């Protein structure tokens, strides 16, 4: 046996163990629940004994770092904005939730707006965040509804299930550094260097297989239905708990080919209009907001906004907030603005 354990073999083993242990020790937050891929209620919410709640990158949920008090301080108008990479923005201070907070504070509202945008989050993972924030006494929830992340949601859900599974095929991926290395290569390097045409044609990995699936009309309709069902469930719950809700529906800039650029909402506006309109639930359509303008100036790509777009959106949202406050009698208006709470 001693002759089997050669110094080179022991060194190999040692390096791998060191890497694994090091990652788990030094990146404890991001390792913890990492392979639940955000399919966990508590992922990313770190509660401290002093009552502070920190938003962190953990459990596969990569929140922008922010914090707030578990119990909403009296007079504070707390807004949670749930969404994907559009909500998340280029950075905390260049995204519309931040601009919304500034706008509301300018109007004399002691507002605390928290950006819960996580890139790639679809309906199912947004639903989990929605359920979680109900514990934190929201004054308003802005639900940014998009339907282009469902393939990613589905893929991550399958991965999370696979990771829990017993199948030997997944054993190597239970090692944290193996899994992270695999993901870093296959989802960052590959996507950056190899054009989508090649990746999709040969469906290189499950991510690309999902993208290929997104071009399947049947699959697309299935995802549309899912988004409608989940959003409807969220609206019903908000109504039941009497939490005001704004459904913010995403649109896509279609500027390819020789046709003039246009905005498309993929049926989201109609769905949201059907759900909104009654007390406590408002609808804001990105398409309707930008369509009268020279909208290409506000979009960074087909779906992400430039800072100017974020600012415009924040102002439109602030108007909607005004409607909500008018309904509730303006209970949150204060004389002086309080600073934001991002870390």
């Amino acid at each position, binding site marked *: 046996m001693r002759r089997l354990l050669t110094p080179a073999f022991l060194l190999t083993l040692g390096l791998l163990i060191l890497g694994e242990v090091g990652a788990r020790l030094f990146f404890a937050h991001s390792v913890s629940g990492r392979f639940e891929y955000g399919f966990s209620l508590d992922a990313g919410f770190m509660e401290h004994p002093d009552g502070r709640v920190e938003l962190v990158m953990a459990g596969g949920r990569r929140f922008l770092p922010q914090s707030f008090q578990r119990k909403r301080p009296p007079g504070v108008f707390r807004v949670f904005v749930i969404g994907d990479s559009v909500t998340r923005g280029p950075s905390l201070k260049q995204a519309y939730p931040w601009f919304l907070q500034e706008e509301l504070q300018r109007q004399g509202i002691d507002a605390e707006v928290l950006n819960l945008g996580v890139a790639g989050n679809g309906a199912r993972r947004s639903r989990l965040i929605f359920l979680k924030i109900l514990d934190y006494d929201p004054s308003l929830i802005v639900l940014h509804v998009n339907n282009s992340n469902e393939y990613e949601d589905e893929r991550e859900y399958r991965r999370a299930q696979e990771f829990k599974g017993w199948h030997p095929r997944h054993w*190597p991926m239970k090692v944290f550094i193996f899994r992270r290395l695999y993901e870093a290569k296959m989802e960052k390097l590959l996507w950056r*260097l190899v054009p989508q045409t*090649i*990746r999709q044609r040969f469906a290189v990995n499950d991510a690309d297989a999902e993208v290929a699936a997104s071009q399947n009309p049947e699959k697309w309709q299935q995802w549309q239905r899912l988004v409608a069902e989940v959003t409807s469930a969220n609206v019903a719950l908000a109504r039941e708990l009497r939490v005001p809700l704004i459904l913010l529906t995403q649109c896509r800039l279609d500027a390819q080919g020789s046709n003039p650029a246009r905005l498309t909402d993929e049926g989201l506006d109609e769905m949201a209009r059907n759900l909104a309109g009654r007390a406590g639930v408002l609808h804001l359509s990105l398409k309707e907001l930008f369509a009268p303008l020279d909208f290409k100036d506000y979009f960074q790509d087909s779906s992400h906004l430039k800072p100017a777009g974020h600012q415009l959106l924040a102002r439109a949202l602030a108007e909607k907030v005004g409607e909500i406050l008018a309904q509730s009698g303006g209970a949150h208006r204060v004389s002086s603005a309080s600073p934001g709470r991002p870390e």
Partner: protein
Amino acid sequence: MSFVAWPYPFFLIGVVILYWVLGRRPRQLLLLVASYIFYGFWDVRFLALVMTTTGVDYLAALGLAGHRPRFLAVLGLPLLPGLWLGVCKVLEPLTGPVPWGTVAVALALGLAFSGAYQGLWLLPENPRRRGFLFLSVGSCLAILGFFKYFGFFTQQAVAVLRNLGFEPGWVLPHIVLPVGISFYTFQSLGYVFDVYRGRTEVCRDFLTFAVFDAYFPQLVAGPIERAGHLIPQLDREQVFHPAHLQEGLKMILVGLFKKVFVADNCALLANYAFAPETTLNGYWAVLGALAFAFQIYGDFSGYSDIARGSSRLLGIELVQNFRFPYLARNPSDFWRRWHISLSAWFRDYVYIPLGGNRGSRGETMRNLALTLLLAGFWHGASWIFILWGAYWGAFLIFYHFSPVKVFADREATWSWHTFGSVLSMWIITLMGWAIFRSPDLARLGSWLAALGNWDSGAALPWARCALWLGLHLAPLWLLKLATCKAQDETALEHLPWPVRGVIYALLLLLVVSSTEHDQEFIYFQF
């Protein structure tokens, strides 16, 4: 079962543990059962073909050596494939459909073989020996010809008839190509040729021979072993030594690295570049050929390394199949470094029997051309492979008979001439791979036309893809640099242990960074 599929490590660990626990005879039985399970993972029905080759060549070799087997063996062994198909028929829901006609034909052919075999014993020695040789070669090539080449020849016949104005109403059957048929057929035939020429002892023990014919590490894609090398190792009682495990695991790791990290990632670009619908320009034509050159190298040499490593765990050494082929200095040198076991097979059993280089210049040229054409055709029933064989044949003839010494000798020390030779060989090899990889002559034509078009046009941007390729080739070249001193692509023992430890850890990390591709080995189709 594929070496890169998840059941293989469990299978191998199980076999290795049992192997070292058991005694010599049970070990052989274990290896035979394990080999049949390994092959049966693809399709248990095709085990009948492995059994046929084994039975036929075992009996033929005994006949060649003048050992008359018992009547029961002569009757029973050729019937085994038919009986096996009968079992598959009974278990049809598990094994897939087996028509009764196939079972009946297999049994009838078995009986016919037994009859012919018994009849040959009535002849005098020389005609009898030729008869046994013919029986073996005829049976093996008939099986190979039917499963691999029947479709090709019938298609050509139909095309010729159509050109002559006839419209044959045949419905061409779709024949499934059994995995690795060319490999085990050639290995078995090599044994019969060696016995015929008296170069190797006849194997009188059926179990040992059956293991030789179906030995799982090299059953489906080589290396094509010689009986004189493998049978004595299977026959003798292996003694466990920790070095077997160390070497075996290291070879498997290097093989996995070549297959999973290098080949599968290069395949992405090669598959795109050679797809019929892809718009190519000069950059993509070169990038595609380069990607395929390393895909096929990583794929096949990786397979060979895993095969050698798996076998080493059992204390059995397989021959080296690749030795830095992309450092070859001339065409002849390339074939001494690429798929060495097949090149040696064609040299010993085709080229030399044809006369080798012993005759006139014209005869030598003919022998070279014929050997390479056959080697090309061995790879597959298609004009593309014949063209590829002809291409290499032309370069070998040029190398041997050109009045100008263009290429450096194999043993030459490094100089500008050597460097130029290696570079020239790169260009020749890349062109060769472009022929090999093209799905048809039309695609090959568009690949060649793309070499004259260096405009970006409608082709995809290539620079980032080239970076992707480079990132996967850099570790391979570093590994080559580390191993070239020992002239073995898996040899790392000469390095200090801390360096080895780091290399193993890095190789492992690179392998896991590229899993989940599950691309099949290219050479399985041959």
